[in-house]
């Protein structure tokens, strides 16, 4: 007799099946039917190609896949797609996941190790998924005297703020979640939330090491926000706009890093500090204060904070690309869309798939822009990751000294360079751009 099923009885097996069926029916009746009624009678369904989208029409997609393309196109035009999938959260999370994998493999290579190796058969590509599953299945432990609502809310807020930051980054011409006129100011406002969330989480844990870590994070972020803002002002002056899409578009011939290298360096260093990456990972300095403000977080709460951190990393790298490296601008490398797909479709011997009148989903310019943006972002991310291998952590007083004296001074030098370029007529009206 096996241990797993000590005494198997057919009657109990049937009973368990019937139980499942009962619950499924009950849930369908209680939730599914009202939902169907809501869809049918309350929500106004969109009109696609002159036909009203009805549940019946949805069923016909299975028979004719080409009918799905207009629906997809309509969906891609909605805001929910932009927020959830392409320039927004999904795209950023995908890049963040790739970043984590690349970071681990690259760091391992630098340290003459192998890194993640066994998970996913090939060089451990599924390691992140395994880690995520582990984090989800972990118990969440909350300190007894913690301020529970804030403690619960802090990781969620952290991810939400990071996602809000991602929303400002334009990926390709016209492809940005929030194309606001004062985009850069919005970015500064969102960055300003991070120290508050950190200190909230640290304070609510009611523990010593998180508290010290939170205070350190507060020091670090507040003191580096000023050079961060100042270092970006040079680009704003040259462009004359706070809209990130306009800043990116204005660099069609020269990226601003050619004229403002000091600003780029200052922004890069402050970026490392804002991201709490080595050499500026004081808030998580494990040999001094265990894990800093993350000490008491466990399970998926910790996972959320990590997700937020890597989203933030992507967003900062994207901001660097948009402001200093010319955003999506680059030579056209994507081939034009093959027209015969629209008329003939794909011929694979006797079978002909298509034609697909709904294609192309993305135009050539957008694909090219996104490609250049991703390439540049990956390059910047590489340089963000590299210091982790070669630098030790610095100390709080050195950090504050660096932030308040050197970087702010350099940021002002950068502003004067920008002003000089404008007044000398090198740039601006009559100049190069």
């Amino acid at each position, binding site marked *: 007799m096996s241990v797993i099923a000590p005494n198997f009885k057919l009657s109990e097996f049937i009973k368990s099946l019937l139980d499942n069926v009962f619950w499924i029916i009950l849930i369908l009746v209680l939730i599914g039917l009202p939902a169907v009624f809501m869809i049918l009678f309350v929500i106004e369904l969109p009109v696609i190609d002159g036909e009203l989208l009805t549940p019946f029409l949805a069923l016909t997609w299975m028979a004719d896949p080409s009918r799905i393309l207009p629906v997809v196109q309509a969906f891609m035009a909605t805001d929910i797609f932009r927020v959830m999938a392409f320039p927004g959260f999904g795209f950023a999370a995908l890049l963040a996941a790739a970043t984590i994998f690349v970071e681990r493999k690259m*760091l391992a290579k*630098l*340290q*003459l*190790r192998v890194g993640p190796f066994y998970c996913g058969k090939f060089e451990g590509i599924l390691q992140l998924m395994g880690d995520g599953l582990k984090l989800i299945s972990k118990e969440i432990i909350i300190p007894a005297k913690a301020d529970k609502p804030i403690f619960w809310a802090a990781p969620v807020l952290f991810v939400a703020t990071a996602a809000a930051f991602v929303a400002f980054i334009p990926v390709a011409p016209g492809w940005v979640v929030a194309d606001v006129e004062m985009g850069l100011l919005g970015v500064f406002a969102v960055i300003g939330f991070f120290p508050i969330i950190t200190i909230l989480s640290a304070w609510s844990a009611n523990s*010593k*090491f998180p508290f*010290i870590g939170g205070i350190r994070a507060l020091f670090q972020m507040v003191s580096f926000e000023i050079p961060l803002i100042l270092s970006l002002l040079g680009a704003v002056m040259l462009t004359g706009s706070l809209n990130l899409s306009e800043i990116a578009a204005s660099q069609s011939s020269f990226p601003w890093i050619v004229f403002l290298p000091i600003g780029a360096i200052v922004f890069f260093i402050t970026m490392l500090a804002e991201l709490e990456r*080595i*050499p500026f*990972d*004081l808030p998580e*300095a*494990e*040999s*001094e*204060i*265990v894990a800093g403000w993350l000490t008491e977080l466990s399970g998926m709460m910790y996972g959320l904070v990590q997700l937020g951190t890597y989203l933030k990393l992507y967003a900062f790298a994207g901001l660097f690309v948009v402001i200093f490296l010319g955003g999506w601008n680059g030579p056209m490398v994507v081939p034009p869309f093959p027209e015969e797909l629209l008329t003939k479709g794909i011929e694979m011997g006797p079978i002909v798939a298509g034609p697909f009148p709904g294609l192309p989903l993305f135009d050539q310019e957008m694909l090219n822009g996104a490609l250049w943006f991703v390439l540049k972002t990956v390059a910047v991310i590489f340089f963000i990751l590299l210091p*982790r*291998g*070669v*630098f*030790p*952590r*610095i*100390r*709080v*007083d*050195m950090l504050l000294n660096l932030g308040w004296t050197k970087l702010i001074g350099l940021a002002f030098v950068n502003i004067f360079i920008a002003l000089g370029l404008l007044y000398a007529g090198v740039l601006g009206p009559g100049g190069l751009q």
Partner: protein
Amino acid sequence: MTFTLPPGLALQKVDERIMTLNVGPQHPGSGHMRIIVQIDGDYIVACDPDPGYVHRGEEKMAEYRNYITNIPHLERPVIHDSCNVLYPYVLGAEELLGIEVPERAKYVRVIASELNRCIYIMYWLAIYGIFLGHSTMFMWPAGDRELLIDLMEKMTGARVTHAHFVPGGVRNDLPPNFEDVCLRQVNYFEKRIKEYAAVFYDNPILISRTQDTGVLSREDAIRYGTTGSVLRASGVDYDLRVKEPYDVYDELDVHTNVMKEGDSYARSRIPWLDMIESCNIIRQALQKMPKSGSVRVKLKPNPKTKGLESVYKRVESGRGSLGCYIVSDAKTEPYRVKLSVPSFRNLIALPNLLRGEKLGNMPSVYWSLNYWPVEADR
């Protein structure tokens, strides 16, 4: 910053501003010990080291075992440096039992001792690196250590706890072709550790981080009775391999590395220079070693000492001078064995160095003292 706390006395007055932190034993920055730290803002006002979490009474155990069976457990305090921690005991037992060691055995001991010193320092360096947040400096030494561990394993048959030295020589002869393999791997090892300079020792961030922190002046280093790299980093030229050469160190050319600064950086650089020096010593010893000959004197099964007498022998281990005081009373077991370990001697400097330091300097100052908690507790 001046604080008017009496030296050596810590942790009595606690007021509102002062926060007490228990750094250890369940803390990534302490090892098997606890440092009770009181901080005012970011400054440490008082510090009280609390060792003893891994105390296992080696000295008491040694009184119940005979001179040979003491060997496997007396090396347990520092398993990474197990040849060196056994060395003074073996020298003392030889003097008590009246044994003359063969020449080849002395050279084998010197090679094993120097290899073990490098193995220990690499482990220490790995932890020093990770304490400073430098993960590459954790992985590189931990990996390059394997070269020497491989040599020790070829030589003694065990990777970590060798139990190789016995009164009367060493347990077994070198394996065939050992000299070539040893020379090749030691040369590569030296090339590797010289590559650490660019990433670690000449790294400006590391230098600015560790320079002028935890400064131990020459007078204080002598007064506290510190030893090893801590002492030599404070400008005292004292190395037992030169000053009181045991076995065949008087026939080898040993250079002592001394730095004057006495800060955390100097204390971390001295062991690195020592490793390069150890590679030189190994090469010399391989060259001068007699190519054949016995490596062990045959002893009677249970050797007894002559009478009630005592002996104090010391060697230079990876952490400093390591002494062993043996009292014997004409029996097969020693009457009393006392290990005078360098970690315990250096520990006294910790509260004095940390007072007035910043909290961020605590790991680097603490670990630069070359402190090994298990050895200090014995």
